[in-house]
């Protein structure tokens, strides 16, 4: 039944046929294709003989046999074997402890872990920005006072300052020294806060590394499942269907192609478009 459709013999049913024909033919000398042809010729000759001698009923039976009944039996046996194999493979996949753990524990966990990464980086950025926002006015304050004292000090050195003015300058100077110390302390604290906020790099880096390991495990398991299902893995066509203007966040070097490397590339591209 297959040969009429495809012009070739299904490989899976050849051994059984060959066994049968082996009784009358030399198995070692002929190819499965030749054996198949021989068998067909023999059958046609038998059929012709049966019809010519008026054995119509037996002729019809042989004809039915030739048209696929025997092949169908082999085909069913083959389907049975494949079904069993598939069943075993599916069970092997289902009973795989690693896969079970991945699906039930680690994948749900990883979502939370990645959310945590976002929270930590957001926290770090906010801590840093808060420290900068607290430190900048202190620096501004210091600069303003220094500017004022500098002109007074200049006049003092050039002996342009009256005693009365000097009497006012002295407490101002004391005040400045005191506030400068506290400003410097405050700025130091901000710097420490900024430094401490960078700990997210270590913490998120560890989580992300763990996630990468997990993704690799999932990849291995997926390849196994695809292999079991017998599907061919298509080439890179998955990505061809992605819209080139679809937003996808920061480009990762070595992963994303056709991305610009820096602001200069953006400017060049835009100027080539007449910007």
């Amino acid at each position, binding site marked *: 039944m297959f040969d009429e459709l495809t012009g070739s013999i299904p490989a899976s049913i050849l051994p059984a046929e060959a066994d049968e024909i082996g009784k009358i033919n030399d198995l070692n000398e002929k190819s499965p294709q030749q054996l198949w042809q021989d068998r067909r010729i023999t059958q046609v000759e038998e059929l012709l003989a049966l019809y010519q001698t008026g054995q119509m009923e037996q002729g019809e039976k042989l004809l039915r046999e030739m048209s696929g009944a025997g092949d169908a039996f082999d085909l069913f046996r083959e389907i049975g074997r494949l079904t069993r194999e598939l069943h075993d493979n599916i069970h092997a996949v289902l009973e795989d402890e690693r896969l079970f753990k991945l699906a039930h524990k680690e994948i749900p966990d990883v979502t939370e872990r990645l959310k945590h990464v976002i929270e930590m980086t*957001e926290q770090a*950025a*906010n801590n840093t*920005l808060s420290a*900068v*926002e607290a430190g900048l006015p202190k620096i501004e304050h210091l600069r303003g006072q220094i500017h004022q004292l500098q002109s007074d000090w200049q006049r003092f050195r050039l002996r342009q300052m009256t005693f009365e003015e000097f009497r006012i300058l002295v407490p101002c100077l004391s005040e400045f020294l005191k506030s400068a110390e506290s400003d410097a302390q405050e700025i130091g604290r901000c710097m420490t806060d900024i430094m401490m906020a960078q700990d997210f790099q270590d913490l998120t880096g560890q989580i992300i590394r763990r996630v990468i390991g997990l993704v690799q495990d999932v990849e291995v398991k997926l390849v196994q499942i695809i292999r079991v299902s017998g599907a061919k893995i298509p080439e890179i066509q998955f990505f061809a269907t992605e819209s*080139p*203007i679809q*937003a*996808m*966040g*920061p*480009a990762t070097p070595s992963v*994303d192609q*056709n*991305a*610009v490397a*820096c*602001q200069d590339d*953006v400017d060049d*591209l*835009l100027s080539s*478009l007449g*910007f």
Partner: protein
Amino acid sequence: MKILIVDDFSTMRRIIKNLLRDLGFTNTHEADDGSTALPVLRSGNFDFLISDWNMPGMTGIDLLKAVRADPRINKLPVLMVTAESKREQIIEAAQAGVNGYVVKPFTAATLEEKIKKIFERIG
């Protein structure tokens, strides 16, 4: 100068807001995606729009197209500040009528330069 900053990450809005303040722009407002930004823009007499691209809800490119399609606000200068860095995306933004394009991570100097350039061109 009334400026709207659109980004889904509050930290990035904060960074841009601080940079703008250093440049002397203190009248800044914020939105976290295109769909919240659009009604604000339509009712608020804004002079400048700075938008991210990749945002949940309405993306920056869709916001840009919506702005250009609305006769009340279609003259609004738009600066895209985004991590989206594919050539196709930059061309798409240019064709949609963006006035400037800054890729993240960026520096304060880059942001200043692009903003100044936009104002020079508009006059």
